[in-house]
């Protein structure tokens, strides 16, 4: 029950022991501060590592064409398979409800690129708009290939940072005309790719433009798909394996490849390899939980230690109060009220400071392996409650012991 007299006595003790109160508060606040920053940094590191791992969208299924190895329906082995738009369209049509991303490309390696006096040899890819998400690339200037470019066969290019640096140096590339394979393309975007320089030595052009401007008809080189996401790895794997088998069957059937011929149609299912990613993700989360729990334990031990020292330091005062008529209950109550009050206020200060730091400084310390440091507010509040409870418990036991011992023993304490 609220007792104003008791709170007056407590505030008097707190206000007249400013150094002790301040040091206790600083210890608790710094404990919470470090804990929240650590949890936030852990999350940032986890995000960074996940980002690094996801150079391309997670769980890509890539399809390429090859040479047949078996004769089939009167056709000789050794036939080079060439996919066409219709292969892509029918694949999408048949499996659309299972797919998250879908894209097709036409690839050309070693094409001459030039701008003014600068030139180089790079890869270009004719792409459909969703391919940007497949590659997980980041547009740093301008835009990516869009549906309008596709519909109007626009001669536009989104170039990698490597090409931009080589051809334009420090100058702005947007809106400039570059020559690719003898044809002028307008630069509409510059991208970076987590895959690094090799993948930034590319230009993405609208697939329809590449097919028409370079005389490729309706040819395509690769098909890319990702499946709709599931949280369970085994389920994701089973779904993707069924999809790749059905997709292979469809493409083999359309391109007259024997059902048992593995040469004509190649499919790489990265979901199989994603086990490593799922595992790494799990290990990272486990590691930071472990770090978090250890930090909480360290915080609890720290706060407990402070409370133990405070009660020990006040043993003689407890003896004096008991000699003057304080009951054991009033002694325990006084110490608990003080400790809970100080740890709660200080804890909130630490929590607020750490959240502000994460909010305002966090975005400034982004790097490849460290992204979006953040902490779940509920986790932070729970941690604070745990520390306050631990502080109260740590204060309770020595206070209980001090309240129980004979006053004469407490009075002798120095």
């Amino acid at each position, binding site marked *: 029950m609220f007792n104003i*007299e008791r709170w007056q006595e407590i505030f008097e003790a707190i206000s007249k022991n400013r150094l002790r109160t301040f040091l206790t508060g600083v210890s608790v606040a710094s404990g919470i501060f470090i804990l929240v920053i650590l949890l936030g940094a852990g999350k940032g590191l986890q995000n960074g590592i996940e980002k690094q791992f996801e150079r391309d969208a997670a769980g890509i299924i890539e399809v390429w064409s090859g040479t047949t190895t078996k004769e089939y329906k009167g056709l000789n082995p050794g036939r080079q398979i060439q996919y066409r738009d219709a292969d892509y369209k029918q694949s999408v049509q048949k499996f659309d409800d299972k797919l998250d991303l879908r894209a097709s490309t036409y690839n050309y390696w070693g094409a001459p690129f030039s701008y003014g006096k600068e030139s180089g040899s790079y890869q270009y890819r004719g792409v459909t708009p969703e391919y940007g998400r497949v590659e997980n690339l980041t547009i740093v200037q301008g835009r990516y290939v869009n549906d309008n470019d596709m519909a109007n066969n626009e001669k536009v290019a989104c170039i990698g940072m490597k090409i931009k640096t080589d051809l334009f140096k420090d100058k702005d590339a947007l809106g400039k005309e570059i020559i690719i394979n003898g044809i002028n393309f307008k630069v509409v975007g510059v991208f970076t790719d987590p895959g690094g320089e090799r993948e930034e030595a590319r230009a993405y052009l609208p697939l329809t433009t590449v097919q028409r401007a370079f005389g490729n008809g309706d040819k395509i080189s690769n098909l890319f798909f990702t499946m709709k996401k599931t949280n369970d790895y085994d389920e994701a794997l089973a779904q993707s394996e069924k999809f790749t088998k059905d997709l292979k069957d469809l493409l083999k059937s359309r391109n007259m490849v024997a059902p048992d011929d593995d040469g004509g149609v190649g499919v790489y299912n990265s979901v199989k390899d994603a086990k490593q990613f799922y595992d790494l993700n799990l290990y990272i989360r486990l590691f930071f939980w472990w770090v978090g729990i250890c930090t909480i334990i360290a915080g609890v031990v720290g706060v407990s230690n402070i409370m133990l020292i405070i009660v020990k330091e006040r043993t003689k005062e407890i003896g*004096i*109060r008991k*000699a003057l008529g304080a*009951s054991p209950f009033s002694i325990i109550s006084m110490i608990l009220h003080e400790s809970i009050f100080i740890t709660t206020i200080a804890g909130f200060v630490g929590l607020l400071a750490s959240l502000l730091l994460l909010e305002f400084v966090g975005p400034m310390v982004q790097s490849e392996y460290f992204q979006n440091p953040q902490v779940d507010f509920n986790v932070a509040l729970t941690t604070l409650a745990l520390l306050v409870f631990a502080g109260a418990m740590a204060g309770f036991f020595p206070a209980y012991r001090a309240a129980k011992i004979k006053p004469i023993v407490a009075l002798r304490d120095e």
Partner: protein
Amino acid sequence: MIEIKDLHKSYKMGSSSLHVLKGINFNIAEGELVAIMGSSGSGKSTLLNILGILDEADSGNYILDKTPIKNLNETIASRYRNKFLGFVFQSFNLINYKTALDNVAMPLYYQGIKRKERYEIAMRYLEKVGLGTHSHHLPSELSGGQKQRVAIARALASNPKVLLADEPTGALDTKTSYEVMELIQGINDEGKTILIVTHEPDIAAMCKRNVVLKDGLIIDDKMVEQVRASSYV
């Protein structure tokens, strides 16, 4: 006021036991000023602690103002200390972070008296011991004699039946000791029962009755002609 019969107290010292009080018997009437004397280790402080319900006897009877003091739990013991007893210690035992006024008001807090009233009472007692102008001083800002006056004011503030003083002049110089004893004599003159533990004969001479302990037994208990401290001050 106080009846003691066959009081025994031992302390464990490792595997052995030290028998400090070996059967103490005496009574103290209301309004007496008694000096309990004895050399170091005679058991006088142990006796005072038992009388103050700060410690407990192993056996024997102790009746305080017709109330048997035996097998009390700490909550009841604290209530009795607050109601019946006032303490003055050799080392003052003031709470360092509290002002003189706060220290004197503290026993009243444990009596449940409201803040305004307890500070009024505390101020009255501070004025009584001549420290009305020092009410907002911290103990560290007071001399030894002033600290002991604050301790006496604190002991009196709850209007106890008995004032127990353990070597109240032990940490003071001679002149200040006499000043403190003059104050104690004045309080006794008003009718308060006071027990003083001392090993100083001149302090004992300022009391009305001297009880001498040796090796845990009373070897002398006599009324004396009281020397007035005012004659030295």
